[in-house]
């Protein structure tokens, strides 16, 4: 039988109840997923709202990525809850002073918005498929909700809706993710989390992770479909990645600096943590390999005017590293924050278990869910230009 709990070892003095870490790797996956949602939605909206024509090849695809990630967001949370069957208590009787109580409503609203936007985007295709012979026709017919008008007038009406939904969606997605930062930043019990910059850091890293995911998946699908990668589209995403990474690094740096500079109670233990257990996950993985290296690579590619396969490989490789960096950022915030004892006089050494409900394997499976959903969605609603041109 699986052990009821996994106590961690510690050094220094920690409160006795702190030896069982409350939030595990599943709570790392949760902000990671919401971040991907916000980032992918940003890419999609840059085309829908702000008219970045170069992003046309990925705009619909990014929307599907956003949707697949968003419907998965509640999964790690539900898996983590002691009583998932009572999850709706937070919606039936929301406790207004709790940051968590908003989640059900915010996430529900956002899923609806994404579904609505996806429906409008793919409506012409749905109508087209509903007219074709075959069994699937019924599926599309139901999906069309009886609206089969694809005249220019109807399309222009749809475009208005799309624009409006994207305009609501941008603050929605970013609000949802900024709020996730607030969940951590608003807690006064943990010095590592308690920062006004936390929502901003979460938001900026969300945009870069989503952009990076769109880059990686776009290049991969081009390989699968055996078509050429649209380099100008890729370049715009790389520029966006570069720009937002700069912001993220600066804000993260400022946050860390002010934490150290303020040097409040417990800073000695925080410094011990930073110089010890945090070296590999933070300085090497998140900061070095995950942030500085891709930043340097993209800068180099732009500076040298690299083109062709080298450019595509360089940007894709950098994007993969960024995905790793943002995951590590979530890990270092969520797990790192709990490894520094509330006593300010001790450190907890949390080693995530491989198996079990809150193990690494379960977290990996949760992360695989949006990819499986995306594979299905892409088959049902091809987001590629040739399909909707």
């Amino acid at each position, binding site marked *: 039988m699986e052990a009821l709990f996994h*106590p961690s070892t510690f050094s220094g003095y920690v409160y006795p109840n702190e030896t069982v870490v409350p939030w595990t790797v599943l709570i790392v996956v949760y902000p990671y997923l919401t971040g991907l949602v916000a980032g992918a939605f940003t890419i999609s909206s840059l085309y829908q709202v702000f008219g970045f024509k170069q992003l046309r090849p990925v705009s619909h695809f990014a929307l599907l990525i956003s949707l697949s990630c968003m419907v998965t967001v509640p999964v790690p949370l539900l898996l983590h809850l002691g009583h998932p069957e009572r999850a709706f208590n*937070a919606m039936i009787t*929301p406790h207004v002073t*709790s940051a968590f109580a908003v989640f059900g409503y915010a996430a529900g609203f956002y899923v609806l918005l994404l579904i609505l936007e996806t429906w409008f985007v793919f409506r012409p295709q749905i109508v087209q498929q509903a007219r074709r012979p075959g069994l699937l026709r019924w599926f599309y017919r139901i999906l069309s909700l009886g609206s089969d008008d694809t005249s220019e007038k109807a399309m222009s009406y749809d475009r208005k809706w799309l624009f409006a939904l994207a305009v609501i969606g941008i603050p929605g997605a970013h609000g949802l993710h900024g709020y996730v930062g607030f969940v951590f930043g608003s807690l*006064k019990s943990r010095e590592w989390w308690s920062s006004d910059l936390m929502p901003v850091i979460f938001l900026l890293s969300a945009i870069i992770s989503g952009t990076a995911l769109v880059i990686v998946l776009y290049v991969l699908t081009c390989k699968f479909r055996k078509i050429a990668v649209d380099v100008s589209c890729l370049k715009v995403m790389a520029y966006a990645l570069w720009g937002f990474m700069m912001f993220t690094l600066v804000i993260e740096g400022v946050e860390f600096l002010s934490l150290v500079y303020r040097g409040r109670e417990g800073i000695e233990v925080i410094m011990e943590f930073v110089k010890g257990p945090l070296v590999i996950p933070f300085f090497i993985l998140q900061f070095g390999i995950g942030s500085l290296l891709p930043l340097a690579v993209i800068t180099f590619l732009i500076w040298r005017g690299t083109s062709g396969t080298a450019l595509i490989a360089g940007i894709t490789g950098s994007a993969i590293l960024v995905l790793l960096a943002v995951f590590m950022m979530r890990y270092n915030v969520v797990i790192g924050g709990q490894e520094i004892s509330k006593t300010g006089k001790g450190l907890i050494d949390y080693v995530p278990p491989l198996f079990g409900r809150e193990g690494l394997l379960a977290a990996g499976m949760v992360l695989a869910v949006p990819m499986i959903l995306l594979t299905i969605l892409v088959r049902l609603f091809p987001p590629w230009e040739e399909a909707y041109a």
Partner: protein
Amino acid sequence: MNESEKRDTRREFLSCLGSAVACSAAAVTAGAVSSTAIGATQVAGAADKPEIPGYDWSKHRWAFGVDAERCIGCLRCVVACKLENDVSLDPHHFRTWVERYVTLQGEDNARIDSQADPINIAASDAEGEYRFSNRYKDANVEKAFFLPKLCNHCTHPACVQVCPTGATYKTDDGVVVIDHTYCIGCQYCVQACPYGARFFDERRNVSDKCTWCYHRITKGLRPACVEVCPTGARIFGDLNDKQSPISQFIQNNRVRVLRPETGNAPNVFYTGTDKDVI
């Protein structure tokens, strides 16, 4: 359900929980009994107006005192609490614990440990029996004292603020309690408590913490830890009663609370602490 009905339901739940715990001869088995009682009261609570006989929570304002000068670190309070409240016996779940502060000669800061420290656990005879190992017997100790800790039942509890469902709430008589039938087990409250007073009960999949033995105090009894303390280091009473032990304790001593900077406004008052106390 309006607010007062909700409170009544909770009051009855607590009352039943209390009786279940009090009536069971072996406290370890109380869990099973009290969970049955919880289920029964939840249904019954909707129909009847529940009340704790002879108890009106608007008439009391409970508070707790700790006189660290008197604590001898015998840990009877810790054991009594575990038995009375069916807390898991392992060294990772405590509603109350005792810290030991030892300053050695030539050192600026105290060395801190609690009964849950692995060395102290190794020195204990069996699971659920706690003692402080005599690890400083050959050291030059300059200053040393014990300090009992428990939930502070804050006036502005951070744990209640963050609870998404309202499962944890502050009663009118000043006690912070958890409705175990309504808690979703998100552990946000465990994170929010600056004192490490909350833990997750993996057997029931809900958060848990000290209730000042609400099932006892509403019947005119003292909390189990106060009851068993052989030196009177733990003081409990009603602030509304000026002659109560706690009112006297606060009047006659210069008391402090832990971490006032959090804004939580704790209701456990300490004397005999030191600069190292966290």
